[in-house]
């Protein structure tokens, strides 16, 4: 599990740090590697030092197919949990993305403008959408853990 967390968090650390951390992966503190949280609408958020990185899950990206356009939110925009703040679009469909947390947009993944299908290739890592400075950290408690999300997703798939 530690290895999994490390891999999925690798975007947030620089390469030299990553190498050091991998060596010491069994003693990684949860303070540095907060758990990724999920919503029932297939977004994820990973919070570090009060800033949450937000994206959509592999399941959502897979259901949409090749993403060809991402309508990124503006930096500085205030958003409340559950607001639609981004749209992703494939040939098949366009979908709203709802923010899992309230706060202010501090950064957006401009790389998606040139390579929107990065969301398909790397939904939990290079395909992140934006960063939100949290105003209500307590909201995280109401989100799903990875295990809870996986159970929920399996139910969705079974309903298919």
């Amino acid at each position: 599990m530690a290895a999994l967390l490390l891999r999925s968090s690798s975007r947030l650390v620089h390469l030299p740090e990553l190498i050091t951390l991998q060596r010491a992966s069994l003693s990684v503190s949860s303070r540095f590697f907060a758990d990724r949280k999920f919503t029932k609408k297939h977004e994820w958020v990973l919070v570090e030092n009060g800033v949450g990185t937000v994206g959509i899950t592999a399941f959502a990206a897979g259901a949409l197919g090749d993403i060809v356009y991402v309508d990124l939110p503006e930096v500085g925009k205030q958003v409340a949990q559950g607001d639609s703040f981004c749209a992703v679009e494939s040939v098949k469909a366009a979908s709203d993305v709802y923010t899992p947390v309230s706060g202010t947009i501090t950064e957006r993944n401009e790389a998606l403008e040139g390579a929107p299908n990065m969301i398909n290739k790397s939904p939990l890592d290079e395909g992140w959408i934006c960063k939100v400075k949290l105003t209500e950290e307590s909201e995280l408690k109401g989100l799903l853990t990875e295990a809870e999300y996986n159970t929920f997703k399996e139910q969705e798939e079974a309903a298919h």
Partner: protein
Amino acid sequence: MNRLPRLFPAIRTYSSKTEGKKTCLYELHKQHGGNLVNFAGYEMPVQYTDLSIKDSTLHTRKHVSIFDVSHMLQTHITGKDRVAFIESLTTADVEGLKPNSGTLSVFTNEKGGIKDDLIVTKTDQDFIYMVTNAGCIDKDLPYLQENAASWRAKGKDVQINTLDGRGLIALQGPEMAAVLKGETNINLDELTFMTTSVGKVFGLDNCRVTRCGYTGEDGVEISVDAKHASVLVERLLASKAGMVRLAGLGARDALRLEAGLCLYGNDIDENTTPIEAGLAFVIAKRRRQTLGFPGAEIIVEQIEKKNWKKRRVGLVSEGGRAPRGHIPLNVASPIGSATIGFVTSGCPSPCLGKNVAMAYVDTPYSKDGTVLEVDFGAKQAKVTVQKMPFLKTNYYTGKKN
């Protein structure tokens, strides 16, 4: 933001607990990694796991793809009054059709609206062959049967026979002819667009091959016995004469949009006349004189007076969000922006690298080059009216020397 489809409609709309009906190719789709969804009551592949919708669309324009369209309703209309019967319900000049040729037509309603679009083919045998939409089976079939019964009650001779469960396989793309050549006793050079022939295909008897399709490319639809359908598909896939891939509903939708072809229920319906839809060509010349189909007077008046109030148009936009069904189209007016139409379908075009869409707009805004604003709710974007098809179509109209 409710104008956007709800979150991940890709998951919601395409999932369903109710088991759909299965075509004769259902098992084949599963074996080949088809991502099955419920469409018009049938379990149909939206795409196959090894090819994205975008790549599948591009593949079809460059090579050739197989689409299972067995969910569509295939019907034989028999009896000596069959031609007059079909003409009483559609806008087609069936009488004037050469044997073994067909045409796109529509069932109309009393208001001149479109009940369904269809392909009607006059065979050289004792029946008319018709293909209608799967999504309309529940209204088309009773409609045909009730009308036939009332004709019979008046002493006329007409019967409706559905080809239940029979396979219908669309083979679409520039390599189609190369793939079939040598594998069929039908002369493909003579089989021009909208003509039909029955013969042997890949060793399988009794295949009806009709040169038509829904992609804008050269192609055929092969009507085949249910028990032979998957064998035919496997033999097509194994062909060395072309790169044959399976394609699903996702690519089919993008292809037909690029080719400017209507999807019933989206771009045409009971409330749009063929004239408003830009389909005046389906009202055969002779039928404009003889009339005798539901709503004929309304439709012919629209043709003569050019007094339609709305019109189906093509739209393009460079990049950004794609206009999609139900999204309003606005123009600036002295008192703010006014809605003058709605998008009926649209997508980012895999082949053109820009967004393409169809919409109905008030007639004054239907001219080529008119710039409109598509209203996504929180954001607006510019779109330009453009003639369809959006790309060059490649229908086979005869051998070029």
